[in-house]
């Protein structure tokens, strides 16, 4: 039992943080949100040069060949930075699906796409038919999409996108239409069910990781504001009403974080409780980020309600991602379902 990251993992996070401080300022995020893409190809390219986009891509395709446990700190950092690029969609969802894709089709997909992901030439969008729209779809080169229980991989040229703008300008949401064919089919039947279940678990954990970073940033912004804003002749952060709001929000974030890390470890190691761990993590992270957004807005007061203030960039991420891939209540219901599926355990009276 050693529940901590190693130096390489921490160092990689530090590099991404330093990069984002320069290359992903609030002004940069606003520019991305205002663009048709919702994100920036040059910045994606720069992330590729750091090795970020290829973290889960095997070394033979120019990536780092690492797992979700290595990616989780980067996802959290992406949330903290408000990074608009489809990092989660590509490295935590798209690449693992391609790595698991069976047969000659899988081999062809990996050969065609993985080096492009690693070198920053491509992003991947992933969606299921139950979703009203697919995130990271605008600008994606490859779509991994489900219909009628089958999973298909469809290049951008073969899809028709109907962009669906969202409150969070970096969601890059679109409805994706395509014609299923033997050439696009990745898996079907029982195997597809397993793929989709694994995809859902990875999505829950990864979205949770981004949310923890978003929540952390929201609380940091609110704490900073509470130190500076003076009313009744004192910084508002000296008032208990403000302190207690912020302390409660911070506690929820601090306890969500290890849950996300554990889920990342379980998914990487193929732990038999990985689904349970992923749902626990997402439920806590969704609630923590929603509370952080609510608290940060209340602490800022009217200025936080303005378009001009940067708080919106993180609040809107929090709201979007709290609902994405199953909201807190959905994952709690799943947790209970999974626990009840276990044999009854004798407990002390």
């Amino acid at each position, binding site marked *: 039992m050693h529940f901590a990251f190693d130096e390489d993992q921490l160092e990689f996070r530090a590099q991404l943080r330093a990069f984002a401080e320069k290359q992903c300022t609030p002004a940069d995020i606003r520019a991305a949100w205002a663009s048709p893409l919702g994100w920036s190809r040059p910045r994606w390219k720069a992330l590729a040069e750091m090795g970020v986009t290829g973290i889960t891509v095997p070394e033979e395709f120019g990536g780092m060949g690492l797992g979700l446990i290595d990616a989780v700190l980067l996802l959290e950092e992406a949330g903290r930075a408000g990074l608009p690029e489809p990092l989660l969609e590509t490295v935590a969802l798209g690449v693992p699906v391609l790595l698991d894709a069976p047969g000659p089709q899988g081999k062809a997909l990996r050969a065609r796409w993985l080096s492009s992901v690693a070198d920053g030439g491509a992003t991947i969008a992933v969606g299921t038919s139950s979703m009203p729209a697919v995130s990271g779809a605008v600008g994606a080169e490859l779509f991994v999409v489900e219909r009628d229980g089958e999973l298909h991989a469809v290049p951008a040229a073969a899809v028709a996108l109907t962009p669906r703008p969202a409150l969070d300008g970096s969601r890059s949401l679109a409805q994706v239409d395509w014609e299923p064919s033997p050439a696009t089919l990745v898996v079907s039947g029982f195997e597809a069910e397993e793929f989709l279940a694994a995809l859902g678990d990875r999505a829950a954990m990864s979205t949770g990781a981004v949310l923890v970073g978003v929540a952390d940033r929201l609380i940091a912004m609110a704490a900073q504001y509470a130190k500076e804003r003076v009313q009744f002749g004192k910084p508002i952060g000296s008032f*208990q009403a403000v302190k207690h709001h912020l302390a409660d929000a911070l506690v929820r974030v601090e306890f969500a974080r290890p849950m996300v890390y554990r889920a990342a470890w379980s998914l990487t190691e193929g732990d038999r409780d990985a689904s349970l761990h992923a749902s626990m993590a997402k439920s806590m992270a969704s609630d923590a980020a929603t509370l952080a957004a609510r608290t940060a807005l209340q602490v800022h007061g009217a200025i936080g309600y303005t378009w001009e203030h940067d708080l919106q960039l993180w609040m809107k991420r929090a709201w979007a991602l709290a609902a994405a891939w199953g909201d807190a209540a959905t994952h709690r219901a799943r947790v*209970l379902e999974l626990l*009840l599926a276990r044999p009854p355990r004798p407990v002390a009276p």
Partner: protein
Amino acid sequence: MDLRFTSAQERFRAEVRSWLEANAPSASRGTGPLPSLDTAEGFEAHRAWERVMYDAHWSVVSWPEEVGGRGVGLLEWLIFEEEYYRAGAPTRVGQNGIFLLAPTLFEFGTPEQKARYLPAMASGEEIWCQGWSEPDAGSDLAAIRSRATLAGGTWVLNGQKTWCSRGAFADWIFGLFRSDPEAERHRGLTYFLVPMDSPGVTVRPIAQLDGETGFAEVFFEDVEVPAAQVLGGVGEGWKVAMATAGSERGLSLRSPARYTEAAARLVELYRRQVEADPAGAARQADAVARAVIDAEAYRLQTYWTVTRVLDGGGVGPEASMNKLFWSETDLAIHSTALALLGEQAEMLSDDSRPPPWLDGFLFALAGPIYAGTNEIQRNVVAERVLGLPRA
């Protein structure tokens, strides 16, 4: 990162489990449950159980062998705790000593003090209570007025302590007294170790919500205490006390096993209620899941913290976050259980005691109050973790 236990740790777990199965008081063997520890009879029964554990070297596994432990690490201590709660073994009557005072003694005690107090604490021969709060010093602990004056090399204590858990029956008390009335509030305090049978000590037991004397007021009237019974330096009491408070709020007092075990019981209660009253159970489903998830989060946070400590780090003001979280989680687990039981929840057992869920609920209600109210913890988190200005 590796979240598996080593095979040595798994063997340790198996050893703990089989010893507890063979020795812990249990209804099936007719040796349990013990009477409430807040009665004179129950207190002695719990003390006897401490001795059984001590004789088998299980009472304080993480302490060095020379003071009664096994010298195992923090992870093994967590494993022991998981097994202890899983077995439904008795509440630790010595908890104020072994979990609160002992870490402080290890940090600030002289070699003589450690040798004098720790083994007797580990065996249950000397059971400790805490003497901090006073009628006019609760959340504002630094306002304490009980005095210590030096007369010919001996300290003389006067004043009143209150809400001393286990105070009705304890053998010793650790307390904070004002040794320098001229000094600023937080300075001029000294931490004393005092036998409860000292001349001048008067105990007035106080009945708690369950009707039993779980805590007491303790009066000091010219109580003489030798200088060797000062813990830490004279005037250093606040610093020493805050180390104890860190243990109380942070790692040692409330190991996660208490909550994960209660959560496991909650799932089993829910499972039964789904059979008995599906619609009623469904209304509590979200609360059940929430409580179970929070208990698990506390467990993981503890492993995260323990790893940091084992890697050479410390526990700072984040102990206050722990205290907020475990106290709220405990209440959530037990409130949800009572909600599942519905109108049955209020009823007492045949022995006129609250049955386990109701008893646990009453106990959990104290959590947000003792060890520094949750309002005080929120202030600590805001000021010392987030850096907000003091009022």
